[in-house]
């Protein structure tokens, strides 16, 4: 077996519990070219720069694979001329396959992205529904406490299954107007889709292709579910976000039916697979820093800055793997070649010592904290306001109510994904639950 590159080690499940030392090694060079022709970006300045760069796209259909450079060939070679680049273009593997789906705004570039994002924001936030998220606060507090009530009488709990997963899933289901009896089915679909898009450097091309096909088929099932749900909402609209996408149009007009399906599917998956990790990472980090946990119990408003620090220190989205260079880009002494995949290590950027003082310290009082937890630029996380509020409330309530919570396994077992990283289970022993 050949030696793994640093980035391949990040993807390797064996390093899931603590990828941060690998990021530190990667940051010795801001941008490293991988043998598959992609470029991995690990430093804060370069990540921020590329997130705001109009020469970087998010539409994977604009990728092509070049002839790979032989091993040892210098990566900052003279860029090929435009003509040579065209000749070398090969479509990405799953382009044009049967399971190809219409990208949601996360995988589109301006101006289509901008219009879809505005349409999607219209029923969700400002300028039209600025109070949508804050209005959910009382319901969130009730939901968090109901989950905590189920822990009464137990000596040990699983933060993931009992708390961090149900809260965002119930909230996104409520937001989209999904009946509660459908939620288990969607849970399993969402999980299968995430497994399919995960990065695994050790599998063969065929295995990856088969896995992606399977994930694509699952995605089709999710879309079929959404189509039926949209039909029901069209006939009987409610005050939910999905009904808003269907009937409440802003200056950009109505969203096309296919776009409603892809948008709703995206929001559903994101609601299932991201905030769960932020809440769980938060609980884990607090249990590892008992003095901060105690402070939070005494000063509930500490949670505001604490969640921002979590987004820097243990972000649920570690990697943005889907960017593409639309033209040759010279940055930090490297030329990123046109058509190449660009992989942004957000979690590494947020631990960059040239940007953050003492970056490996978890410091909820940190003032200078322009973290990359939700990305930056035009693709800044759509659900960030909801994720923040959910995590602020969830952590405040559980720390307030659990008596003497203790970590059982450190590190806990992790989920497979290196991109959407978080514990699979977080078993905590408790002495009781306060009222």
């Amino acid at each position, binding site marked *: 077996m050949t030696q793994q590159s640093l980035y391949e080690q990040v993807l390797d499940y064996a390093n899931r519990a603590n990828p941060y030392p690998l990021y530190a090694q990667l940051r010795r060079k801001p941008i490293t070219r991988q043998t598959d022709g992609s470029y991995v970006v690990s430093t804060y300045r370069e990540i921020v720069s590329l997130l705001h760069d109009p020469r970087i796209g998010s539409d994977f259909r604009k990728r092509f694979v070049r002839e790979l450079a032989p091993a040892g060939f210098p990566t900052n070679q003279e860029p090929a001329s435009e003509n040579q680049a065209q000749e070398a273009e090969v479509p990405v593997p799953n382009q044009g396959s049967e399971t190809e789906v219409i990208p949601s705004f996360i995988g589109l570039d301006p101006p289509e992205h901008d219009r879809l994002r505005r349409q999607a924001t219209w029923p969700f936030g*400002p*300028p039209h529904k*600025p*109070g949508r998220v*804050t209005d959910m606060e009382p319901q969130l507090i009730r939901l968090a406490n109901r989950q905590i009530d189920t822990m009464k009488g137990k000596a040990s709990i699983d933060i993931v299954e009992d708390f961090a997963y149900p809260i965002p899933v119930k909230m996104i289901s409520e937001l989209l107007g999904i009946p509660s009896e459908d939620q288990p089915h969607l849970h399993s679909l969402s999980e299968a889709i995430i497994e399919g898009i995960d990065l695994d450097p050790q599998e063969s091309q065929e295995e990856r292709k088969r896995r992606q096909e399977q994930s694509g088929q699952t995605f089709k099932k999710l879309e079929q579910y959404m189509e039926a749900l949209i039909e029901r909402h069209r006939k009987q609209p409610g005050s939910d976000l999905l009904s808003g996408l269907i009937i409440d149009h802003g200056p950009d007009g109505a969203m096309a039916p296919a776009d409603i399906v892809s948008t709703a599917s995206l929001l559903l998956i994101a609601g299932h697979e991201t905030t769960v990790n932020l809440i769980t990472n938060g609980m884990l980090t607090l249990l590892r820093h008992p003095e901060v946990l105690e402070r939070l119990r005494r000063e509930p*408003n500490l949670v*505001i800055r604490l969640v921002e620090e979590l987004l820097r220190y243990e972000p649920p989205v570690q990697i943005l793997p889907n960017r593409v260079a639309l033209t040759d880009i010279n940055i930090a002494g490297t030329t990123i070649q046109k058509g190449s995949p660009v992989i942004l290590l957000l979690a590494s950027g947020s631990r960059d010592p040239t940007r953050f003082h003492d970056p490996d310290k978890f410091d909820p009082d940190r003032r*200078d904290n*322009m973290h990359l937890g939700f990305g930056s630029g035009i693709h800044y996380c759509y659900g960030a306001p909801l994720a*923040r509020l959910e995590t602020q409330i969830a952590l405040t309530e559980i720390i307030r109510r659990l008596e003497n919570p203790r970590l059982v396994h450190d590190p806990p077992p992790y989920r497979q994904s290196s991109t959407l990283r978080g514990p699979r289970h977080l078993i905590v022993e408790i002495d009781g639950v306060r009222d």
Partner: protein
Amino acid sequence: MLRIVVDLNRCESYAQCVFAAPSVFWIKDGESLEYDYVPDDSLRVQVERAAAACPVQAISICWLDEQLGQQRGNHNEQ
């Protein structure tokens, strides 16, 4: 008294402050951020959430009681 100021050169209109404190901040005409410099004290937690959520850290908050005390000798505020 709670007072805020936003550096609108830094502001990139992520609107995170509007989501967090919708009666203090608002978006005008698609992208322009406007806000109340003197939000009601009851909105303190919302304003603190808004300032912490700003992706470009453009929002400054302060409590003005002491400032007013210093300046009262020279003029009457409001």
